[in-house]
Structures are given as C-alpha cells and as structure tokens.
C-alpha cells in the first residue's frame, strides 16, 4: 500500500522538522511539491551544499531535512564524514532509491545496488520508508529514509 505524501509531510512537521534543502528526485517529486508549503525549503545546486545548509540551519536552532536522489549520495560523502558525522549533527536525509532493480535506467544500476552498503559503510542509520517511518528514526546522528519508486503516493 503506498504511503500518502501528505501523511509523511505531517509526520515530519509533527516531529519538529522545520527546514529542508535538497536536490530533486522523481521519486520525491510529490514531497518536493508539498514540503515547501509547510517549512522553509531551499533548493541546492548539489547534494553536499544541501547538507551544508542543513548544518547551518541546525546551528541556528532548526531541525533539518535533506532530500536527494541516491545518485547524489556520492556527492556528499565528504560533507557527511567531515561535517555531519564528525560534529554529530542530527540530520535526516530522505533519499530516492533509483536503480533498486535492473529495470531502471542504466545510469542508476550501480549506485542503486550500492546504496545500502554505502550508507552502512558511512555509519548512517537508514531504513526503507514504510508504514513504520514515524518511530523509526531518532534524533541522534545522521540517519536516512530511503524511498523506492511507487512507495509515496
């Protein structure tokens, strides 16, 4: 059963998230339409820039989200290892998971397969978005909600 995008946005707002940045992903298109109506959303030119802005917002007292496609996860590895993880910034990344099957476009095959291993290697706690998302992620450390195509309606 798909999850309603508005329910996910409500859950984020209820959990106190009040700032978001990111780079678009088709899988997150609905979320990118709704989220900016409920909190500050700043489009980033690259995923690491989004992480940087989220950290700045957190330093200023906000609770940030970062949205991206898994193809952009590689772009922010240094931002994660030498900024968010190093300074212990609580950050929730919402990552569209392209290439979870080989039916997706070829440019997504390799990162699609490596996404879980990459998150694990970095020490980012993650889970796939499903009905249990609301209690899945705590406030300590970097964590990620990975979203497959068709899960968000």
């Amino acid at each position, binding site marked *: 059963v798909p999850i309603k995008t508005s329910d996910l946005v409500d859950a984020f707002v209820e959990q106190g998230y009040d700032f978001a940045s990111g780079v678009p992903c088709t899988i997150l298109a609905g979320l990118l339409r709704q989220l900016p109506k409920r909190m500050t959303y*700043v489009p980033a030119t690259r995923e690491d820039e989004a992480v940087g802005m989220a950290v700045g917002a957190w330093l200023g007292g906000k609770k940030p989200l970062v949205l991206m496609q898994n193809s952009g996860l590689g772009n922010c590895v240094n931002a994660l290892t030498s900024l968010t993880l190093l300074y212990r910034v609580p950050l929730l990344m919402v990552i569209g998971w392209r290439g979870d099957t080989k039916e997706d476009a070829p440019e997504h095959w390799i990162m699609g397969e490596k996404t879980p291993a990459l998150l694990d290697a970095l020490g980012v706690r993650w889970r796939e978005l499903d009905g249990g998302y609301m209690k899945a992620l705590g406030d300590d450390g970097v964590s990620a909600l990975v979203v497959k195509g068709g899960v968000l309606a």
Partner: protein
Amino acid sequence: MGIERAIGDILEGLNGDELIVSTTGYTSRILFNIKDTPRNFYMLGSMGLALSIGVGLALSQPDKKVVVIDGDGACLMNLGSLATAGYLGLGNLSYYVLDNGAYASTGGQYTIAKKVSLKRVGKAVGLKMRLIKVGREHNGAMGRVNLLPQEVAERFRGCVGGH
C-alpha cells in the same frame, strides 16, 4: 597583507556579536588563536561548504549577522553555493574570501583564482563578495583548534539560543 592581519582586520570591523563561520585549514586555526568565542564555528573539514553553512545559519537566524570567512580554493570548490547565496540575497550575511591564490594548508599549490576572477563570478550571480588579497605566508606555529568538533557545535548552538 598576511592572512593573520586580514582576519584581524575583519574582526576589528565587527561589533562582536556576529556569528562567524570559518573555512577549514589555517583560516579556522588563525581565527581560533586570535579570538576564540563560542560564536565561531570552526570548520575542520568539508572544504567548500563554509558559505552553505553560513546561508543555512543566516536563514534560520534572520535577526543575527552572519560572517563567512572562506578561501579562494574553497570558494572555487563550490561555486554553486555562490549562486544559491546570490539567489537568496540574504541581507544578514557577509561573505569574505581570503585570496592567496594557493592551497596554503596543503603546501601552497596554486589555485586557478589567479586568472579566474571570483569577484566577477560573484557579480554574475548577484552575490556581494568581499575579496581580500593576502600573501601565502602564515604563521605555521599556530596550533590546531583545540576543541572537539561536537564541542564547537554545541557551544555555538548554546550561544545562538532560541531552542
């Protein structure tokens, strides 16, 4: 002008209640050694993200002044963040770039800022940059930032308040 002097001059022009984000390497070391305060956020890594951090901070603290001290190499690494900052046009954000034309912290390799005008890049994206030419020499004896990363973050958040 030496980089220590340039950072000292920037500080002299401030009221003292600004929030400062300093780029990784000697810039943060020098700031820490000249005048450490909880209002300084010393980057220890994530080269290229100083302005992004400053933008997030300026957006979330609109009543406070935010000062970002970057270097030419770090600025070149993330030109996209200049475009974002120019797009947002934040009145409470000041962006300084100390331009020594070199990656001083890794041995003085040259940057392409010698030929590429960062000022014109800033102009093109609508961002007012305060570019300061500095020499490559610096006091190598200045110690590292003697704080744990999470201490830097927590004391910074503590003095920003409002949470």
